């Protein structure tokens, strides 16, 4: 069998900061899986609500102010992350480092505010199904915000050390995509937990 030179890969790029990278697809896979988990939690919430006599059991919907502020902060942090990504796309390492750090600080602030909010809940997860699902969804999202803060801190450290370049930035791409997912995942939860009872209150 004769073996012929077909394609020459010598000059092909070895660094891919975009969809060509397998890792980009890997994080998309993770986001897809987690989105399905978010959906399953939402379905569980709706199922429990549909079978309840009164939802929430106390009769009053939870307060709207701080969750809305947190939503705003998370969306703002998406914008700073986006700016960071644009920065490194143009080779601007400083803009990347500042953008990521700002996002980390904003999300850390969200964690503090959420902690205070959770501690102010007047029901426990042990009280009833409503308490259980609200605490679980809150905890699920809280853990994800924590993970994105931790991960992005690592990215920020590397960014300040000048590791990322226009070509070598798949880590940034992966981190920003995960960041967008965690922030946007808050939207359906926010709507279900805080607006749902107001719009369809029993």
């Amino acid at each position, binding site marked *: *069998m004769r073996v*012929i030179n077909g*394609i020459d890969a010598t*000059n092909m790029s*070895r660094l891919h900061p975009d969809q060509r990278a397998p890792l980009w697809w890997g994080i998309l896979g993770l986001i897809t899986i987690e989105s399905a988990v978010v959906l399953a939690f939402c379905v569980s919430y709706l*199922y*429990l609500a549909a079978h309840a006599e009164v939802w929430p059991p106390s009769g009053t919907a939870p307060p709207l102010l701080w969750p809305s502020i947190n939503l705003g902060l998370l969306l703002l942090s998406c914008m700073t992350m986006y700016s960071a990504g644009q920065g490194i796309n143009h080779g601007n390492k400083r803009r990347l480092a500042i953008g990521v750090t700002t996002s980390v600080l904003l999300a850390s602030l969200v964690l503090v505010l959420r902690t205070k909010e959770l501690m102010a809940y007047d029901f426990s997860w042990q009280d009833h199904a409503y308490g*259980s699902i609200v605490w679980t969804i809150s905890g699920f999202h809280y853990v994800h915000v924590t993970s994105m803060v931790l991960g992005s801190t690592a990215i920020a450290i590397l960014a300040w050390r000048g590791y990322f370049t226009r*070509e070598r930035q798949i880590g940034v791409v992966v981190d920003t995509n995960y960041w967008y997912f965690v922030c946007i995942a808050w939207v359906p939860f926010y709507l279900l937990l805080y607006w749902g009872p107001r719009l369809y209150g029993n």
Partner: protein
Amino acid sequence: MTHQSSRVQERHDSPQEIEQLTRTWHSPRGFPGWFTHVNQRMIGRRFIITGFIFFLLAGVLGLLIRTQLAGPEQHFLGPELYNQFFTMHGTVMMFFFAIPVMEGFAIYVVPLMVGTRDMAFPRLNAFGYYIYLIGGIVLFGSLLVGMAPDAGWFNYVPLAGKEYSPGYGVDIWTTMITFIEVSALTAAVELIVTILRLRAPGMSLNRMPPFVWAALVMSFMIVFAMPAVIVSSTLLILDRLVDTQFFLVESGGQPLLWQHLFWFFGHPEVYIILVPALGMISTIIITFTGRPIFGYTALVLSVVSIGFVSFGLWVHHMFTTGLPQLGMSFFTAASVTIAIPSGVQIFCWIASLWGAKIRFATPMLWVLGFFAIFVIGGLTGVMIASIPFDTQVHDTFFLVAHFHYVLIGGAVFPLMGALYYWWPKFTGRLMSEAGGKWSFWLAFIGFNITFFPMHQLGLEGMPRRVYTYTAEMGWGDLNSLSTLGSFVLAAGFMVTLINAVWSLYRGQPAGENPWNAPTLEWATASPPPAYNYRHIPIVESRWPLWDWQCRGERSVVTGLSHQQREIVITSVLDADPVGVQILPSPTIWPFIAAVAASSGFIGLIFHPVFFVMGFFLVFFALVGWFWPRRPWKEEA
């Protein structure tokens, strides 16, 4: 398909190049080195071997169950042990054998079949295996200390809640599920990315072998089905660990929520097990008829539509729970429609076999056995899609017969065929044909003797999950017959085990392509070298090896480095080369991360603080895993 060199240039390899390539792709030998392996063939082999070990263990549990049921009112196993055994039999078969072994075949074969050197995320691959292994050890350990789960493999609440199952048994179940979720999802994402981005140049989607399509569909199904069971098992863990009220009716909890979430996963799960087997059947038929399969497009579309439709059937597991009739009727209609893609595949295969010069080697026998058994199982499946009929046979031995017909006939028989088929590629040796035939006939006959009478038993009123039955029921004779058959079936599988071990020492050496198959994995040595292919092949037809035999020549990709692990990235639809990916070398971090995650999962059985501990341990393990080492990667 354009060649980048304008002049056709023959390729000759120097021994130094080959030696360098071997060193770059080498996996360390010896004990600590074993924990650093990342090559897909190593990991795939581990999944397959571990999966078959669990198959044997769960099979022994099955024999013990059958022994207890052989006659009425026997005292071989009391209810406590029996209930653990049937729960473990189902749990281990479904979660620790069926999915991992199918994944294992996919992990081993798919990268070879698509013409690449490793999977997209070699370290994640290893991580997924260690998670599976540790989970399996925990589960089997629980059986040895008498703490195994005993609420059935689908673990309904409220029985599985803290009040009615105190003790650690059900906690072991919920932990085990967590391990398997993570392991299956990592393998699924890997397979999807490998199949979509790492195919050999020229292997457009419509040139992919049917087994690769099946692996792709299976992986997408895992991605969309597993989250439902992740959520349901999380809710149960929380109920048991910190007293949430998800499934306790007094506080607004809903036991049916468990069933909806579990079966939304559970129904696609059985098709996740079936779909790769369907790919194996196509593969074997193609090779042993020596011609392209009829209806490639129809087969691919059927497998894809099975993947989609299977998500719309789950309520047929809940027909007796008191849900509204009208809603449930939709699921009857959906459940029968799955007969159509199944039927299309069966008849494409029959059309392919018709008039072909079939070689009746052992793999082909297992495929023929599949037809006989799976068709019966599929037909009883259509029957139980009827709500009225299901109300009589649900939770009886009729159902036990049905699902063993579709699972053993539909998945295990093709799997055995695939084992015999790819064994020469895995090991370089052929298994004995005589042994293969003995194994097949014992298994086929034993299987039917074991499970056919169960249809009758179910119709005569024998419920499932019973550790005994009274003498006046008259079920003793058929049960004895069934038990007898189970030992014949077991003997059939034992013959394959002996055959496999024997062949490692005395089997006829297989060359590169002992079956004259057309797919890429047969274009390299048996077993393949660490780098799979000396050169990444370029593909110009659906049946590359037959194509090359006709033309007498083939093209390859050149220019990949021998100093680091490099593979080609290609586009999704047409597999045009777009770049080169550098893959990681052996490393201990996947193992460390797996131990970190496992400690969290296991700790959750005891106290919520372990969640926090596990979270941070995994974070640090991931930092170790991903932190860039100097020298930082530059452009090639």
